């Protein structure tokens, strides 16, 4: 085992991975980062320069994508980014307590989100604003979490998009259970079958719940797509602090396919996600997708990435921007006029203005809210606390206390 390539792609028969894999730190990092520059393991259909790469294996999954469809994917990404930047600004202006930026991950989220069928279910972590958009959750419905007025205001069952889960990895088990339920109800096995997709990050792959989710989904043949957005950083910790092995390769140990896709390529992400979801809805799940991408902004608005990563890295990833490559492709190869781009820009500005207007006028939740919907069948103890507190609080109304 001398070169990173050898270690990253052990040949069958080389020996058990546990004894074969004794990589140096440099090999680990090189293996984890082996990516777009021609690596055969990374699925890419649209280069950072906006050129379409023919791929006999994956082209069939996007052969129906018209110029109009690609423009819509572009629009989704631009609007998502605009919402993200506006919300980030709203935090800076004191209108939000915190924001969790998705900058740079638009393609991973829009590509996978648009691969979902209406009957599918999605379990996000807390950065999936782009996926939320594809599930019909309004950007304004995300704001309460970050302004502190609620813990998520959309209807997770109606939108088929679960509430954000902040404890890292918890949702992976919840998604596995949901997908088991889809199978138990006989909703798996044909083109109309159901599937579930679950989002988590590179850091989450170290969590026990994610490991257990892999085990559960595999032994119960759950129709679950594990969608790992490897954005290279878990706050300040790089992926090599989470794994020796490229994350998609972990799937092999659990007995299901794993694949690494260029997470900055919306077309490739769409293709791979469609394939994975189809495998699941036909009863061949689960599948792990590692979307190789980059968190272009901070972990949250409270984070300071200059303390732990070099600006060179950021600059290098800027050249792989998920939106820019689609724009170039649309201009060069799909006869898209400036008028279209101007129109999307106007639309995004309008969306941002609406978001801002909504944010600044969000009502404070009433004090009684903290007692509400704790239990389906109530609790006399909690009810008594609520009544006592509201009576106490009412004593302050209009008086000098």
């Amino acid at each position, binding site marked *: 085992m001398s070169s990173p390539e050898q270690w990253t792609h052990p040949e069958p028969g080389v020996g058990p991975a546990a004894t074969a894999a004794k990589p140096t730190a440099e090999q680990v990092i090189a293996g984890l980062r082996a990516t777009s520059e021609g690596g055969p393991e990374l699925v890419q259909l649209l280069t950072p320069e906006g050129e379409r790469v023919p791929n006999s294996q994956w082209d069939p999954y996007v052969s129906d994508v018209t110029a109009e469809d690609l423009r819509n994917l572009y629009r989704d990404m631009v609007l998502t980014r605009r919402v993200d930047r506006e919300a980030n600004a709203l935090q800076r202006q004191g209108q939000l307590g915190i924001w969790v930026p998705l900058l740079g991950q638009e393609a991973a989220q829009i590509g996978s989100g648009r691969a979902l069928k209406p009957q599918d279910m999605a379990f996000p972590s807390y950065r999936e604003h782009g996926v939320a958009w594809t599930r019909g959750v309004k950007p304004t419905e995300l704001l309460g979490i970050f302004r502190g007025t*609620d*813990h*998520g*205001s959309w*209807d*997770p*069952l109606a939108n088929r998009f*679960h*509430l954000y*889960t902040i*404890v890292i990895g*918890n949702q*992976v*088990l*919840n*998604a*596995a*259970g*949901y*997908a*088991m*339920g*889809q199978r*138990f*109800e006989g909703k798996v096995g044909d083109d109309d079958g159901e599937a579930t997709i679950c989002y988590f990050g590179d850091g989450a792959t170290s969590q*026990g*719940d994610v490991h*257990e*989710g892999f*085990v*559960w989904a595999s*032994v119960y043949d759950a129709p679950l797509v594990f969608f790992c957005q490897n954005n290279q950083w878990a706050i300040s910790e790089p992926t090599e602090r989470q794994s020796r092995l490229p994350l998609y390769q972990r799937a092999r140990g659990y007995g299901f396919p794993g694949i690494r896709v260029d997470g900055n390529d919306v077309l490739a992400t769409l293709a791979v996600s469609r394939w994975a979801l189809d495998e699941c809805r036909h009863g061949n799940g689960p599948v792990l997708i590692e979307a190789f991408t980059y968190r272009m902004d901070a972990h949250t608005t409270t984070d300071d990435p200059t303390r732990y990563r070099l600006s060179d890295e950021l600059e290098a990833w800027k050249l792989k921007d998920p939106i820019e490559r689609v724009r170039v492709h649309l201009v060069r190869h799909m006869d898209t006029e400036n008028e279209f781009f101007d129109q999307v820009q106007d639309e995004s500005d309008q969306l941002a203005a609406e978001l801002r207007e909504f944010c600044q006028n969000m009502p404070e939740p009433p004090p009684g809210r903290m007692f*509400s*919907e*704790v*239990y*389906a*069948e109530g*609790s*006399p*103890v*909690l009810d008594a606390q609520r009544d006592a507190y509201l009576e106490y609080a009412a004593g302050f109304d209009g008086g000098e206390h």
Partner: protein
Amino acid sequence: MAAPVMNKSAESPRTSSQTVTLGKSLNLGLRAAMEADPKVIVMGEDVGKLGGVFRITDGLQKDFGEQRVLDTPLAESGIIGTAVGLAIRGFRPVCEIQFDGFIFPAFDQIVSQVAKLRFRSQGKINLPMVIRVPFGGGIGAVEHHSESPESYFAHTAGLKVVSCSNPVDAYWMIQQAIRCDDPVLFFEPKRRYYEKAELDFDAKPEPLFASRVLRKGTHATIATYGPMVKTCLESAAAAAEEGKELEVIDLRALSPMDLTPVYDSVRRTGHLVVVSEAPGEASLSSEIAARVQQECFYSLEAPILRVTGFDAPYPPSKLEEEFLPDLDRVLDAVDRSLGW
């Protein structure tokens, strides 16, 4: 295999009552709940073919199939975490945690998801799931098999917690817990699994979240639950021989607690002893003492006394008889209260 006691067929009249152990009662209750609602599923380690290490789920997989009685992989967070997803999907999972001391890998899912999801969604998601936990000591087991962790869960908003103490309650309470739209931690007194009682299938059960006076008395009140109920009833019988009439209340519901019968009793007796196997510090027993002194301050003729496990890890089993409250320790506390 027991007679099909819940058979709804008019042609086969069922036995209206039967002498059963507490364990068998739970088994019959689970069976009845599964027959009543096809969305009820049982999941846990060894609950299928083996019927659980205590045989509480005996025969259920054979009769209801592997998709309703799941032998799960061996990971407690996985059991609870996937049950959450199944409940979101519309199932009513009944999870078995094999032993009290093994619940902690699932603590995160229970506290972070099970307890909070309804509140987080402001009522859009219900989690009608039951987490069965055989708990308490007295069976001569190795470490982690004899613990009483109920206070952790009673402390957690969003969960409901109950404990049965006898076969009759076990049969009804497990079915009521399964029907409840809130997540319920169901603590089973494992050392009482083989206690027997006559179970009348036609009886009208008590509400789930209600405590019950099991023995009337005038001199002092004992509030207890789970495995200590039997100990306290025996203590009351012994006290009666000395002319002291103790009122024994089985709390049954641990969160929310129904303390009204305790308040009523203490207002008459003026004396309260709280008995629990769990260590006393920051526990249900301290909660009961705090609330009763607040509600019954002028009725109390002595401080509220507690008889509990000690604030030390559960000991090796050769010492558990010293650790666990017993008849003598209960009566000693009663005497101290009455002699205050």
